[in-house]
């Protein structure tokens, strides 16, 4: 480990490793610190993602694809099932452990140094540089960097240490629990969603196949419903009723930020990306693609800023501008939809399902489903058309 790097990245998730790759590829010195012993572990993710989006950032490798998805199923509280083939969108469920490894390997091949078991506990400005304090395999270390990239996920303490407001309101976070279940009857090419105040108030249950008879089964509840009953207890109840004979291979907890993206994504010598920047799609909770996109943008902007010898917020703001131009409007539409959908009752879900059940399955699309979901709030129809067009 050197004493100084041009760019220091905190967090080895998809955002951090992607930023590391795209910065290092431009010939600047890059270091990445991950607190856990292994990149990509533990997996706190349902692992579903659109394949065409992934392909923009990494060559698809069947080794980290667990299953390919061609259909979706939605389940109402009383059990009405609305299932349809997806006409265009091709999805997959990843092996995140292997996928995250692949991203880290690419970063390392581009020239980035990566340290695991490296927990960053402090951030201090000294002039134009930043000093990071860390504990690396039990030893205290200090390094300096011209630019720090905060990719530290849900916790987002690095940006907080820099004085940026990252704390989430309860309505903007979903505590989650997930199990990988084996020996269960599922549709191996279908992602299923269960909507009900009973199963997951203000959120949903997902069943994402990882093989013929195994799946990630998890749920998130909205923070405003958290407290009386934990996400884990909700999940245990769901599994008991739907998969009573399952073998539980993993049980994990996690939190998803379902907030608006941070207003401030850069400061002097600092950039914030991925979950730390609250760039997750607030309606679906999907954040892999946003992490990759932000990682690439920020990595490139950071490297160019180093070459221009200017790490000021004014220079780094071109990352924020690019993010806003590409995803800003869309993510605000998703946020408005999330706010509405979160308030739907079990009766609403039944009415939506009953209306859709009358349609021939081959004519069901995500646009149709969400048009039904917002029919009592017509002002959101434009948002539905814009974000789901073509899906």
């Amino acid at each position, binding site marked *: 480990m050197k004493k100084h790097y041009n760019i220091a990245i905190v967090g080895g998730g998809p955002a951090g490793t992607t930023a590391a790759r795209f910065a290092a590829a431009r010939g600047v010195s890059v270091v990445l610190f991950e*607190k*856990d*012993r292994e990149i990509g572990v533990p997996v*706190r993710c349902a692992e579903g993602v659109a394949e065409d989006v992934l392909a923009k950032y990494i060559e698809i490798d069947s080794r980290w694809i667990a299953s390919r998805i061609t259909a979706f199923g939605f389940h109402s509280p009383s059990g009405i099932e609305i299932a349809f083939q997806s006409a265009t969108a091709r999805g997959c469920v990843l092996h995140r452990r292997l996928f995250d490894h692949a991203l880290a390997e690419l970063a390392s091949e581009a020239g980035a140094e990566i340290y695991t*078991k490296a*927990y960053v*506990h402090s951030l201090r400005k000294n002039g134009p540089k930043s000093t990071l304090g860390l*504990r690396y395999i039990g030893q205290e270390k200090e390094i300096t960097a011209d630019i720090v990239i905060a990719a530290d*996920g*849900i*916790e*987002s*303490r690095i940006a*907080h240490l820099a004085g940026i407001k*990252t*704390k*989430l309101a*309860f309505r903007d*976070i979903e*505590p*989650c*629990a997930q199990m990988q279940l084996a020996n269960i009857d599922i549709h191996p090419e279908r992602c299923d969603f269960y909507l009900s105040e009973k199963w997951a108030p203000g959120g949903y249950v997902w069943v994402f196949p990882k093989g013929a008879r195994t799946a990630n089964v998890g749920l998130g509840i909205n*923070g405003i419903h*958290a*407290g009386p009953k*934990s*996400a*884990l*207890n909700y999940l245990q109840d769901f599994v008991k009723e739907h998969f009573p004979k399952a073998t539980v291979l993993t*049980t*994990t*907890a*996690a*939190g998803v*930020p379902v907030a608006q993206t941070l207003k401030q994504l850069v400061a002097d010598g600092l950039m914030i990306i991925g979950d730390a920047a609250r760039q997750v799609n607030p309606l679906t909770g999907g954040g892999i693609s946003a992490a990759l996109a932000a990682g690439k943008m920020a990595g490139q902007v950071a490297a160019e800023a180093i070459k221009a010898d200017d790490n000021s917020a004014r220079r780094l703001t071109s990352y924020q501008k690019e993010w806003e131009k590409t995803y800003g409007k869309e993510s605000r539409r998703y946020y408005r939809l999330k706010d509405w959908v979160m308030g739907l009752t079990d009766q609403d879900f039944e009415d939506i399902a009953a209306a859709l059940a009358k349609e021939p399955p081959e004519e069901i699309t995500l646009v149709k489903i969400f048009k039904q979901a917002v029919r009592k709030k017509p002002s959101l129809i434009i948002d539905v058309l814009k974000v789901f067009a073509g899906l």
Partner: protein
Amino acid sequence: MILVDVNLCDLCGTCIAVCPVDCIELTEFDLKISHESCIQCNACIKICPFAALTSANVEVMEDEKTL
């Protein structure tokens, strides 16, 4: 004060995202709450996906010491 049940805590960091005074620190193996800065708002207790956090008053602590 907030107690962490280490048998339940999955070290996921969700509590940190809602802690208004940022008094929680998460390393690879440990969730630590700084009791000097904690304002007892109980946000972490409510949000915890596994219900691993509880609030205890000092008396309970004294009891535990004598056990």
